[in-house]
């Protein structure tokens, strides 16, 4: 079953605007990771945030984690057309015999118009 659920499923913005994607999950986690996938190609690792962290930054990316609400958000500032891709959150579970494998959400399809 899906652990993470991204919201919205699709997002269309103009270049220069900020894009915010949200991810909710159901069970306790070790960490949560965000990925980008361009048009059916491989996944690019963006950020890992651990369960004891609340916010991380990487360039134009900002990720927050609220374990009390079991949710995370990915903010892309000053978006570019090249940011057009699908974005997935994936959770590494704390329990349930997890060996570090990830459970992926359904993804948000972001379209940035020039």
């Amino acid at each position: 079953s899906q652990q993470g659920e991204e919201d919205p499923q699709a997002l269309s913005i103009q270049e220069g605007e900020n894009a915010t994607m949200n991810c909710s999950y159901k069970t306790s986690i070790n960490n949560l990771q965000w990925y980008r996938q361009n048009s059916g190609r491989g996944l690019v690792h963006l950020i890992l945030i651990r369960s004891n962290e609340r916010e991380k930054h990487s360039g134009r990316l900002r990720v927050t984690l609220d374990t009390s609400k079991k949710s995370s958000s990915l903010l892309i500032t000053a978006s570019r057309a090249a940011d057009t891709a699908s974005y997935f959150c994936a959770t590494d579970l704390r329990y349930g015999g997890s060996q570090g494998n990830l459970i992926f959400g359904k993804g948000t399809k972001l379209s940035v118009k020039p």
Partner: protein
Amino acid sequence: SAVISQKPSRDICQRGTSLTIQCQVDSQVTMMFWYRQQPGQSLTLIATANQGSEATYESGFVIDKFPISRPNLTFSTLTVSNMSPEDSSIYLCSGSTRGEQFFGPGTRLTVL
């Protein structure tokens, strides 16, 4: 971060045949995994590839259909056996180090 390569990048196969996908990482990783991504869908874990022992399969996936090998820390193979059109997907391997998981470029498989 680990750099992961896969071969082949894509293939078109006839039903009933088998395809073996190779995955190579450039550094030693603690864990290796195989995922499937069906068209327009998210990723689903097939199995954890264990070095020198049988892979650990997720519910809905069995060794006879998806045999996996991992003879050393940096190499693994996934075979898709007795293929049918429902096996048409992107197959991705990943390697995990210090909790971060990195993915290969994927193998796009089409079964006719």
